């Protein structure tokens, strides 16, 4: 198959990009490994009862269906259930799980999103232990309870959001507790680190979900971080968030039967006391990382920017990369919410259209501003220092351009 643009990933970034590209008169195919389009939008559903009426509800599923409809109306081809295993300059995309094994495109947009970091601990392979993202999909998309009594491990914005979503859906969430201290968990197991990150995120308004958390915690989040965790037990909408206890291990024969909670110091060092809590499911949360493998095989430069979630492709303000004709949008550029991903998708599409001699529906500068606005209005914020990360990216991009002057090896 030959197309103008191949988009990898049918989440908010990929779908938004496809609509803009089709509007500019380009032929587009979207490739996605999941069996239906929408990406993480499919499982996103939350409400802020105190937000203005029009912004009260975030219904990711509805949004995904609307975007898919708009894309299809513009002749965007969406192929699901296919795995892209190679992207090589030219551009040639190789597929698994499809009858047609290759797609040739003039430009490629990587909108592959993110994956969850693992949180290994004793008992984590037992059936009934799932990642917090899986719990979100089961609850909101499939309407299946992950358990009758659920413990969430990991204290971060995503874990708390999913705990709230499960509770709203009628699941008994017995609590949210810290990850245990181990060489694998590092800062994740430190209550003071977790709290300072949460407090930073909660202070960044407007941010309905975290504002809600801050409010429900009696506005104590910031104070707690400063005063060495004097109020160890937060209640968020009736869910105990126990930042001074870690789940030391998960027990069960054939599946999850209980978790063992252990008191920990402000730095996460176990202080000895253990208690057994009976649960039939455990959700593990260790944060998200950008899915960059395809950027790597495509040969674009990668950089380490922890503020954006780890290793990310080196990209410019228009979302182009160091590989000619290869663009990025969404969580592959850094861990942010769906609103930012959509705005980035549109920006990448504008950049691609312009590079291919088409006239986009809006000027690039406007699309860049729209990304900034979306960031300011995001209902949830996963990483507190995204702005610093973006500033670092800008500097790295500039440095790369300066050093490449006269260097033809730039594009590898």
């Amino acid at each position, binding site marked *: 198959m030959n197309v103008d643009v191949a988009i990898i990933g049918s989440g908010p970034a990929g779908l938004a990009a496809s609509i803009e590209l089709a509007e500019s008169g380009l032929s587009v195919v979207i490739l996605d*490994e*999941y*069996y239906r389009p929408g990406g993480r939008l499919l499982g996103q559903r939350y409400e802020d009862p105190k937000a203005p009426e029009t912004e009260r509800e975030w219904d990711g599923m509805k949004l995904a269906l609307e975007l898919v409809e708009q894309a299809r109306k513009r002749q965007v081809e969406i192929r699901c*259930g296919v795995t892209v295993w190679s992207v090589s300059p030219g551009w040639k995309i190789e597929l698994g799980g499809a009858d047609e094994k290759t797609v040739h495109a003039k430009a490629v947009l990587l909108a592959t999103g993110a*994956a*969850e970091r693992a949180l290994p601990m004793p008992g984590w*392979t*037992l*059936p*009934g*232990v*799932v*990642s917090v*993202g*899986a719990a979100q*999909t*089961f*609850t909101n998309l*499939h*309407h*299946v*309870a*992950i*358990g*009758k009594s659920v413990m969430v491990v990991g204290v971060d914005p995503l874990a708390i959001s999913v705990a709230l979503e499960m509770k709203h*859906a*009628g*699941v008994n969430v017995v609590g949210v507790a810290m990850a245990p201290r181990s060489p694998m968990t590092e800062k994740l197991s430190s209550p003071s680190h977790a709290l300072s990150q949460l407090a930073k995120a909660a202070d960044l308004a407007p941010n309905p979900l975290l504002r809600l958390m801050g409010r429900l915690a009696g506005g104590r989040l910031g104070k707690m971080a400063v005063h060495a965790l004097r109020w160890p037990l937060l209640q968020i909408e009736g869910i105990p968030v126990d930042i001074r206890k870690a789940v030391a291990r998960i027990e069960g024969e*054939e*599946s999850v039967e209980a978790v063992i909670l252990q008191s920990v110091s402000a730095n996460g060092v176990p202080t000895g006391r253990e208690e057994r809590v009976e649960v039939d499911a455990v959700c593990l949360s260790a944060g998200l990382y950008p899915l960059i493998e395809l950027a790597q095989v495509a040969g674009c430069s990668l950089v380490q920017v922890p503020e954006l979630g780890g290793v990310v492709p080196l990209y410019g303000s228009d979302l182009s990369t160091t590989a000619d004709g290869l663009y990025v949008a969404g969580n592959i550029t850094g861990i942010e919410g769906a609103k930012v991903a959509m705005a980035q998708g549109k920006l990448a599409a504008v950049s691609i259209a312009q590079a291919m001699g088409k006239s986009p529906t809006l000027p690039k500068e406007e699309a860049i501003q729209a990304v900034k606005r979306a960031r300011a209005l995001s209902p949830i914020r996963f990483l507190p220092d995204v702005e610093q990360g973006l500033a670092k990216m800008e500097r790295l991009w500039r440095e790369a351009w300066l050093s490449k002057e006269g260097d033809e090896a730039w594009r590898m």
Partner: protein
Amino acid sequence: MAANFRLPVAESSEKREQIAFTFNGQQVMGYEGEPIAVALWACGIKTIRSCGATAQPRGVYCGIGHCYECRAQVDGVANVRTCMTPLSRGTSVSSSSDWHIEGA
């Protein structure tokens, strides 16, 4: 009686009819088009296979096709990720051996 993990919202808002499929020869019910792993979980089946090295039980972990923990033999094809594969009427699912790949 088999466990039921369907949330109330699903019962009220969706009047879909359940279809029959099999897991290790036993008949179970689920909704057409939902991932096989979800249908199994909904009726209380959380163990999909056992680890080839330790024989310990394994089931869904990530739900997005990355960890491969939920793999099973589906209609004769080995190592299918059940969290990514939609259910059809009469689908035959079985706990596949880690070391045996059909047709290899």
